[in-house]
């Protein structure tokens, strides 16, 4: 079901709406596909602003409250805009034992962002994530798609300088 109106939102362009409509069209009749639809829509826009959630609910023929409940349950979904570069610091046990705390401190001090926050210029979003399953490389920091293992706190700044 494609709706005839799109709510206005500065972060969602016309092309994005077209893509969103396609996603909803493909998934609205598949039971249980809300999470998949939310993931694809987030991939399209970068995050899930609440008006978009309402739109998805309508498109999927579900209650808006339910969609909001699902979107806020899973840590994958973000209702706030994210930075151009996403730093994922692994807070799994192995990385914890090997000192991810210090790395987080370094990032916090250097860029004035805490876990879950985005810099005002949207350069970085810092996320403390669950075990990435790369315990052999602890402590691990993933920037966008790049995995950085055995990170020394002193290297952090150097690594991050490559991401603007």
């Amino acid at each position, binding site marked *: 079901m494609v709706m005839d109106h799109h709510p206005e939102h500065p972060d969602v362009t016309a092309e994005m709406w077209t893509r969103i409509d396609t996603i909803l069209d493909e998934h609205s009749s598949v039971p249980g596909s809300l999470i998949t639809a939310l993931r694809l829509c987030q991939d399209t826009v970068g995050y899930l602003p609440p008006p978009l959630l309402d739109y998805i609910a309508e498109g999927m023929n579900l209650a808006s*409250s339910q969609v909001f409940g699902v979107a806020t349950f899973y840590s994958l979904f973000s209702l706030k805009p994210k930075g151009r570069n996403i730093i994922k610091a692994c807070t799994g046990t192995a990385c914890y034992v090997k000192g991810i705390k210090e790395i987080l401190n370094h990032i916090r001090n250097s860029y004035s962002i805490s876990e879950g926050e985005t810099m005002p210029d949207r350069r970085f979003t810092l996320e403390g994530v669950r075990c990435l399953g790369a315990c052999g490389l602890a402590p691990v920091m993933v920037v966008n798609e790049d995995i950085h293992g055995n990170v020394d706190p002193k290297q952090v700044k150097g690594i991050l300088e490559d991401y603007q």
Partner: protein
Amino acid sequence: MWHTYLISAFKTNPLATRGVCILPTAVVSFLPWQTSLNQKTDKVRLEMEHKDKSMIIDGRALRFTEGETILEVARRNHIDIPTLCHLKGATPTGACRVCVVEVEGARTLMTSCTVPATAGMVVHSESPEVIRSRRMTIELMLTSGRHDDCLVCPSSGDCRLQDLAFRYKVKGATFTPSGVKYPMEAANPFILRDFSKCILCGRCVQACNEVQVNEAIDFGYRGAEAKIVTKGDRALKDSDCVFCGECVQACPVAALVPKNARLVPRMSETRAVKTTCSYCGVGCQMNLHVKNNRVWHVTGCEEVAPNHGSLCVKGRYGFDFIASEHRLTTPLIKENGAFREASWDEALDLTARRFKEIAGAHADAVGVLTSARVTNEENYIAQKFARTVLKTNNIDHCARL
């Protein structure tokens, strides 16, 4: 015959009345006969060995039907297992953990509201382990948010958490209260949402989604952040809520109360008067909660057709007219363009005279419009009056469905 037997049983054995609910159950486990419970259970177990569909709760052999939960069997037999999140008519969620019982052979305590009775099952509803767990659960609820102001709480005396705290003698003093996390919401004319009182039992969500099927609220966020949310976590007035108040009636604490609840007598101070809603033809059964000859709250009558406790926004909140200052208390007669007060006799005489004159002179010049706010019987009389006295079929009603 049956009654006589029951009464004589009570007379001869005063204990027969005690086991039911007069005896505070929290005390039961500390009583001397509790120690012999297992012995007693063994005896009963032997007696029922060859009977299908029997189970033992607190040493009593009880029959059950397939699909009944432990809680249902217990309640049917007047064994008082406390519940909190359990909402009749909705799917049991097992969320609050207040109704846990000890089932012999089970690894952990089980929620009686969700576990179906099985043949030979042996249940202890108030064992020391159960009481320990309930006390901690209640303690945890009492210290989540803010539950230390019963003195000024509108739900005091009508609060399940308060009742449980009393029953299990829990003070909520072990931990530091976690305080207010989400601000109170009052931006609508009907409902006050106080999240610091919410214990996340989920009854409101079930009332909204399973009973009314309005789907305006749901669980949002996760873990300690969990909150009951509307779409986009907006205020109720900006959501799909229609203010039927089903959630308010379902709320066991003071997280959802009528908007003016802090300004009017508490529910527990009022007397319930059962009546029929006069707004439409459905005939919902409702309780008017009255104090000093004034209606302060309206709730749906549970377990009675046709509404089984549900009401709509009009039935539940539309009663301010009863005590309205603008309501007429004496008849008024208009003379020379202005109203003056008159006696009932004078007014009725005038009306009767004018009806006679007008209806006598012109056929169908008079019509009668009755109100939904009067009873069926009164409406019947009105139409009878129209047809036989005024001799007109011009009779109608403001709330024809």
